[in-house]
C-alpha cells in the first residue's frame, strides 16, 4: 500500500486516508478579465503531465483534513517529499543530492 507522509500530522499513513487533488502551484490569475480566452483555457485545463517528478496537491481528508503538496514520481509512484500548502516549490536538484 502507498504510504504518504502528512506534513501536518507528521506521520506516514496509508493512502486510503488521503485524496489526490490535482497539480500544485497553479495560482488563479489575479485579474481574470485581463486574460485572453486561450490564457484562461490554459489556466483551467492545461496541465504539465510530466513523466517523472510531479508537483501535486493531496488532502489528508480522513485525518487532519489539510491540503498539502507532494512531489511524486509518476513512473515509480514514489513520493520524493511532502510539504505544507503555501510553501515554495522545492528545488528538485537539492532533493536528488539529499537522496544520494
Amino acid at each position, binding site marked *: 500500500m502507498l504510504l504518504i507522509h502528512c506534513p*501536518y*500530522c507528521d506521520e506516514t*499513513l*496509508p*493512502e*486510503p486516508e488521503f485524496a489526490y487533488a490535482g497539480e500544485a502551484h497553479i495560482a488563479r490569475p489575479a485579474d481574470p478579465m485581463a486574460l485572453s480566452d486561450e490564457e484562461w483555457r490554459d489556466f483551467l485545463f492545461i496541465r504539465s503531465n510530466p513523466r517523472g517528478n510531479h508537483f501535486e496537491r493531496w488532502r489528508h481528508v480522513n*485525518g*487532519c483534513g*489539510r491540503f498539502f503538496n507532494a512531489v511524486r514520481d509518476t513512473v515509480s509512484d514514489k513520493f520524493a517529499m511532502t510539504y505544507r500548502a503555501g510553501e515554495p516549490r522545492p528545488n528538485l536538484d537539492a532533493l536528488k543530492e539529499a537522496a544520494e
Partner: protein
Amino acid sequence: MTAQIHSFPRSTAVAVTVLPLEARFSLRLRAASREAAEAALGLPLPDRIGRTSEQGGRRALCLGPDEWRLDVPAAEAAAVAGALEGGIPHALVEVTDREVTFLIEGPGSLDLLAIGIARDVRRLEVGRGARTVFDGVQAVLVREGEERFTLAVWRSYASHVEELLRQGAREIALGL
C-alpha cells in the same frame, strides 16, 4: 439514538460494546485564539494532532491544526455551548446525536481493528487518537489503554461498522 444496536458475542479475546455518549462537541478555531479558548473552557487544548487532554471530566482530542473534539458530561453541555461566546472567533457545534462510539477491549482488539483500519494501530500510543478510515467509513479512533480502544463513527454508518465488528469479534472468538 436510532441506530439498531444488537448484542455482541461475549468472549475473552475481544469485547465490543456501544458507549453511551454524554455530550460531544466539534470545535474549530485558529491557533491564535487557542489560549483564550482554553481559559474560557477550563480545559487545555492540545496543539499537536492526535494528543488528548483531560480536566474536570472534560476531554479534548486534537484532530487537526484548528480542530478539536470535546467530550463533556451531559450536565455541562449548555455551559460549554455558551463558554466561548463573545470575543473569540470560533465554530462550536454539538455533535452528540451524530456519533455512535464503540468500545473495543481485550487482547484481540488490535486484530479486530485491523480488519477495517489500514494504518498500523500498534504504533498509536496510549492516550492518543486519530481520525482515520474503518472499511471506508471515516472514524475517530482513540487508544484508551494498551488493549482498549474507542471507535466513533457517524450514526448512519454505525450499522455497517457494527456488523463488521460483530463478524470480526466472532471470528476472533472462534480462533479463526
